[in-house]
């Protein structure tokens, strides 16, 4: 019952939104928590969230939203700057970064949130026929290998101080963590392994508890 106010948002503009919703639901189930998953489409949907997922898709399409619904992106930036845990996968990682360029085309004009101090090379492994799946060692997620699904995936070409590298593929950085932000070049929402989503829920739960203590809500007393 303690988790009824634990709400994870999934940015619902474009991409694999439902896949993240269902992966988060399975992660809640694995943890035995009763949380809620909310698709975030308008700026009002941000209030009450304890964690947020920026799903995979085409980063240019989500960037394009900035011209239509700037308020939503501002609200997301405020929430993440305020310490709310966020998981960005593929396009989500690009949106969070400070600079992105395409492997072939070069600098792109898309708008970015500039919350995560990394430079991203888009489509770094090549086109779709070069997309692949591969097992990786990710110590943050435990000993068992994690199957990364890389679809026209980007890489982190430069990580500034304060950014922790959590996964590499062929010596290329493909997952990073900076304080409350976790970002992956691959798609943890597509496979059957929900450890990244479990990690997000745990961080979101801690964040929610800290906020409640600050607000003086504290914990609900348990009935004897």
């Amino acid at each position, binding site marked *: 019952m303690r988790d009824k106010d634990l709400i994870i948002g999934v940015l619902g503009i474009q991409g694999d939104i*439902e896949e993240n919703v269902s992966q988060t639901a399975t992660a809640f189930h694995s943890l035995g928590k009763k949380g809620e998953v909310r698709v975030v489409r308008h700026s009002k949907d941000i209030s009450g969230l304890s964690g947020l997922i920026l799903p995979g898709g085409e980063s240019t399409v989500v960037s*394009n939203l900035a011209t239509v619904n700037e308020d939503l992106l501002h609200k997301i930036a405020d929430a993440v700057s305020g310490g709310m845990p966020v998981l960005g996968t593929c396009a989500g990682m690009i949106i969070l970064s400070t600079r992105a360029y395409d492997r072939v085309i070069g600098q792109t004009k898309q708008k970015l949130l500039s919350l995560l101090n990394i430079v991203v090379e888009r489509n770094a492994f090549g086109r779709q026929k070069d997309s692949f799946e591969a097992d990786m060692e990710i110590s943050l997620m435990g000993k068992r290998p994690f199957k990364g699904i890389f679809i026209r995936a980007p890489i982190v070409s430069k990580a500034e101080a304060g950014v922790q590298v959590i996964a590499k593929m062929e010596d290329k950085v493909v997952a990073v963590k900076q304080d409350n932000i976790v970002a992956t070049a691959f798609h943890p929402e597509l496979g059957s392994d929900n450890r990244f989503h479990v990690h997000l829920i745990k961080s979101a739960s801690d964040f929610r508890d800290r906020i409640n203590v600050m607000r003086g809500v504290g914990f609900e007393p348990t009935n004897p």
Partner: protein
Amino acid sequence: MTISLVPSEFEQKNIHRRGSSSRSPFAVGTTLVKRGFAHMQKHGVIMDVTNVEQAQIAEDAGAVAVMVLDKLPFDVRLAGGVARTASVKVVQEIMDAVTIPIMAKCRIGHLGEAQILEEIGVDMIDESEVLTPADEESHLWKWDFTVPFVNGAKNLGEALRRIEEGCSMIRTKGEPGTGNVAEAVAHIKAVNNDIRRLGSLVDDAQELIKVSRQLQSSLQIVEETARLGKLPVVNFAAGGISTPADAALLMNLGCDGVFVGSGVFKSDDASQRAQAIVLATTYFDDPATVLESQRMVDERKSMVGLDTQNLALRMQERGPSV
């Protein structure tokens, strides 16, 4: 698992590995990677383009991918003759100019065109009835390719047969190049109604066998679809979409995204219209935003429509019947 992996017995023969080392842990062209690409297109708009300029307009408007073809479907009707895949040069120029995924059409059953498109490096191939079919007996066996395919379907049986052949995405056929959305609506409703009927038969093996015979599809994929309550791959709308309201209509019917063919670049307000259709597709369930998107276009600038009942060429009827 959020991506359906049935049927997969054909996939195993075709896992290519990256690099020369057979110990390399990379697996390319797997069902997960191919269907996963299609999942990334969801809630997006894929726009038909014939040159670099149109591709850039589409990307700037927020298209999730572009579909390269030699002539827009409306112009295919005007030109008559044989419609083939686009020039290699044009496909390459567009690949060098935009960062979003590039798709291209090949003729139904035309192995040669499909091999060329895969070799150039397009991100998805549309085995399309908009072009003149090259094989009246069989569609391509798409499991043999590393690149994913999208196919058209006007009912559940067609959709399941194409998925059995290895396609990673389905779109309605609609009636392309007409600016008339009625056929696409009919097709998505037919698929949805049949899936709803299947859903009630999940535990009835005898009925499922009968349905699989009616649909001319394997029992395995019929069972899988009944269990999922939806197609095992993403399902887009296509054929005749020309206004933001058209896109919102099809999204409301449960499509995962839309293709716009002649609707954008046969109109007189292409750039505005492309943006408006993207906005309506994203916020299809929010009438205020759909209104805002419809305000961005002028009906006097929409493409001239064609009555789908009296067409000289019904593209949806072309190609192999099974």
